[in-house]
């Protein structure tokens, strides 16, 4: 491929201006501000166009737009280029950079033949696709910037790095080595080794381990809780059974007490009936009778009290002493009554104090018996009748033992409930722990997946780098061998290219190998340009030839080196188009003297006119 012409209509400061180009070496001369960079950009834009897609433009595209949009064209921005392909076709590419709609590639000789669809790339026709490149890689393969050449004297690795970059991404982006470094750094930082305590892989594994332990603890606690809950249920059932046992004995005992009380009341009534005549009544004061001595007045009360105490003792399981006491009391009452009747017969209707006391005591006995019976009935209601009926005799000892057992069971129950409540209060959530473990596993899975991804990317990239370098090395060597003796005036005749690192070494005859990056500046620049030519040849599709666009690449050369480099470029121009932009008078002078149409050409850009960006293209 070679450019025949480029037309700016409008582009940057130019409006409807054209630059025509020869098939060999083209020197485009212009002083500063004459528009060399603009024509350089127009060449690129005319061939490759700009990406036309949804979304915002990339930063690089924005910079391009800001720099090369026409200054005063009312929004129009377009460029066209005519290129000749190796297959004989001449194609005119029209790139409407403002709307990106009116972009097309048509045959320059055969009207109506359209090639747009053949080279569409990211929404717009891209002529570099005929070279097997695209608007990204074309820049790296075909364009050599001044800065790239200026680096060579200062940086011995620059040549090798540039080759690596070209080999990796056609010069558009990073070298494969840098990309591998980035991948390795990312892997080190975002995955890390299993031994690095602060790196994600180790910490996420620890988190999984911790979460698993937490879950196991939660599950154990849950199991213990359920076990304790079941245990409490058993304690509760046991306590209830013990309480029932005690309740039955309590009811039975109460029944016995009620029966005893009823018997006591009945017996007291019987004794009272037997002694119906009762003790002598007290003398009425002021009746005119002889006063009763104090001991006689107190005697019936003492006797009655003794009788009552005796009955009480008898009823309270002190039968013998009670009966003796009651008997003595009754005997004394009988004696007292006989002796008193003889002395003072009582008034017929006045009850004595002793009789009232007797009746009160009997009423108390009956009331106590009723109360105990009601209490027994109440207790009996709370227990199974069959269980109550089965109880024969309840001793106080037996009842106390049952009460003790019930109390013990109740205490055990309370303790178990307290413990359970404590466990429940501290019970971790199994579901929470499961969720945490799953989250930890997912995070570990993500990190392990990232590790695999990065490891795979590194493996494939290393393999690709090795293979491409291996393929590149002989191509570079062949190109260098073709040109090296000629451009170095026979100083260097042999070269080798390390397939691993693309390091270039040269030598004379069988002399020692010398690293190209460490040679004199002029020689290094020559070798660099030859290598770029080799790369451009290698990177393009078979059957095509890539033009080289050079931006002031000889600016830093001394006169002698400049001469050699220019001669080299002219020699290269014999097989592929070379477009050299320069602002140097000595280069123009050389071109005027050495370049011959129609193979080569000098294009001189006029000096910029005040207040006008337009520049006349000359041939």
């Amino acid at each position, binding site marked *: 491929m070679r450019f025949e012409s480029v037309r700016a209509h409008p582009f940057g400061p130019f409006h409807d201006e054209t630059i025509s180009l020869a098939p060999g070496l083209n020197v485009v001369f212009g002083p500063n501000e004459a528009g060399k960079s603009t024509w350089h950009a127009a060449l690129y834009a005319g061939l490759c166009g700009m990406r036309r897609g949804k979304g915002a433009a990339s930063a690089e595209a924005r910079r391009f737009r800001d720099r090369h949009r026409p200054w005063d064209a009312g929004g129009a921005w377009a460029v066209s280029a005519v290129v000749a392909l190796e297959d004989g076709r001449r194609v005119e590419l029209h790139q409407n950079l403002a709307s990106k709609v009116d972009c097309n590639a048509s045959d320059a000789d055969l009207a109506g033949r359209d090639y747009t669809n053949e080279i569409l790339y990211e929404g717009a026709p891209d002529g570099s696709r005929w070279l097997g490149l695209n608007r990204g890689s074309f820049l790296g393969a075909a364009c050599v910037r001044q800065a790239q050449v200026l680096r060579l004297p200062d940086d011995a690795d620059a040549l090798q790095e540039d080759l690596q970059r070209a080999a990796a991404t056609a010069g558009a982006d990073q070298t494969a080595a*840098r990309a591998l470094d*980035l991948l390795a750094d990312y892997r080190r930082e975002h995955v890390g080794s299993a031994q690095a305590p602060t790196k994600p892989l180790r910490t996420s594994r620890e988190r999984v381990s911790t979460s698993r332990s937490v879950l196991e603890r939660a599950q154990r606690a849950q199991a213990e809780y359920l076990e304790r809950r079941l245990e409490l249920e058993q304690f509760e059932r046991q306590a209830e059974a013990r309480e029932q046992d005690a309740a039955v004995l309590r009811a039975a005992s109460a029944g016995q007490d009620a029966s005893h009380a009823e018997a006591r009341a009945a017996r007291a009534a019987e004794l009272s009936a037997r002694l119906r005549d009762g003790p002598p009544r007290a003398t009425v004061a002021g009746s005119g009778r002889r006063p009763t001595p104090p001991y006689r007045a107190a005697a019936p009360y003492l006797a009655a009290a003794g009788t009552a105490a005796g009955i009480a003792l008898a009823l309270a399981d002190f039968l013998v002493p009670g009966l003796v006491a009651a008997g003595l009391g009754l005997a004394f009452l009988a004696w007292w009554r006989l002796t008193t009747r003889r002395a003072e017969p009582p008034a017929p209707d006045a009850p004595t104090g002793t009789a009232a006391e007797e009746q009160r005591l009997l009423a108390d006995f009956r009331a106590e018996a009723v109360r105990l019976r009601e209490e027994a009935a109440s207790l009996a209601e709370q227990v199974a009748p069959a269980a109550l009926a089965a109880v024969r005799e309840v001793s106080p000892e037996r009842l106390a033992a049952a009460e003790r057992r019930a109390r013990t069971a109740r205490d055990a129950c309370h303790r178990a409930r307290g413990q359970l409540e404590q466990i429940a209060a501290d019970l971790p959530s*199994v579901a929470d722990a499961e969720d945490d473990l799953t989250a930890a596993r997912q995070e570990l899975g993500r990190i392990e997946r990232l590790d695999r991804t990065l490891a795979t990317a590194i493996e494939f990239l290393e393999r690709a780098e090795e293979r491409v370098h291996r393929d590149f090395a002989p191509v570079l060597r062949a190109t260098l061998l073709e040109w090296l003796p000629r451009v170095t005036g026979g100083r260097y005749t042999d070269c080798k290219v390390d397939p691993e690192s693309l390091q270039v070494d040269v030598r004379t005859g069988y002399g020692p190998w010398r690293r190209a990056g460490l040679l004199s500046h002029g020689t290094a620049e020559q070798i660099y340009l030859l290598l770029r030519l080799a790369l451009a040849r290698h990177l393009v599709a078979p059957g095509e030839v890539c033009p080289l666009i050079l931006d002031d690449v000889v600016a830093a050369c001394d006169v002698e080196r400049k001469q050699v480099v220019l001669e080299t470029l002219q020699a290269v121009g014999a097989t592929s188009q070379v477009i050299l932009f320069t602002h140097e008078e000595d280069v123009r002078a050389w071109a005027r003297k050495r370049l011959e149409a129609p193979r080569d050409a000098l294009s001189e850009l006029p000096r910029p006119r005040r207040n006008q960006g337009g520049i006349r293209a000359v041939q």
Partner: protein
Amino acid sequence: MPARVTIVHFADLHLDSGFAWAGAGGASARRRRQSLRDALGHIAGLARDVDADALFCGGDLYEHDRVTPDTARFLRGTFAELAPCSVYLAPGNHDWYGPDSLYALTDWSRNVHVFREPRLQPVRLGNGLTLWGAAHCAPASTRNFFEGFAAQGPGTHVALCHAAERSSLAEQGGAKQPHAPFDADDIERAGLAHAFLGHYHRPRDAARYTYPGNPDPLAFGEDGERGAVVATILGDGSITRERRAVATAPAHDLSLDVTGCASQQDVRDRLLRAAGGRRGVVRLTMQGELHPDVDLREDDLRRLLLESFDAVQIRSGALQAGYDLEEIGREQTVRGQFVRDVLEADLPEDETRRVLAAGLRALAGRTDLEAL
């Protein structure tokens, strides 16, 4: 005029369930568990609103292995407050009845009846209606409750249990196990007018049985009108059913096409529009072609969605890296060789996408090497 009994039937609430499936952990998962309780609150409210005679639960009310004392108290209180409405609980395979089960250890209020036997047992509901219920007493291997069973006595007979109707098993998804499996004909053969069931999470109304479906989301991709069923059982055994949604936080399936997004901001804006103020849990499926310059990370999207949703799951399997791989593959460069090699390698599709993105980003000098 036949006698009527109105019941509210639900099943498969799975209280205390884990929510890792939804990408939820910590506070998000707890919120989801709370929403399950809220759903039960809505079911109880529904029973009150329709003045139901009874509330039926067809099992898997909670998860035995995860249940907390707090859940026991919550259930007791919720059901006690429903009195005098009766509550009938038929334990399932996730909340099987056993001596250490919440069913056995909870001091239920008098209006709650728990079926405790692995065979159908009767309860008279009045109006000539008899309810036969059964319990799973183990997490697996429960046999067909209806096999060899014949409803005895006059009136209408219905059943409540947790069981798998065999012909519906396939449509419930491969993970579903046939617990207490039965054939639809078994119900009629057993003399039952209807069976109120649990186990299948996808709702199903058949002539003789009803699966209400899980009332609150338990997985993404759940379809069908699920919730609680208000059923009116007439004296002749006929039934009318009405489904009511009771979920507090539905699960959403969102799809986001990132084609044409030029920046992460574009993706975020598009995602927020797609989310449209929804709440609950969400599964986001990324698709389309992601421009190579867009630094899009799963964590960023997750954080954005968690501002609105309780839980988020992101799938990016259908996402395409916006590289022109065919074009790059034609390059005689390391990059071209790398793309060709990766595409030719027998890697899973999503792994291929991630490896290509990492390698191409590194070659472009980028430092965001982890792709979606």
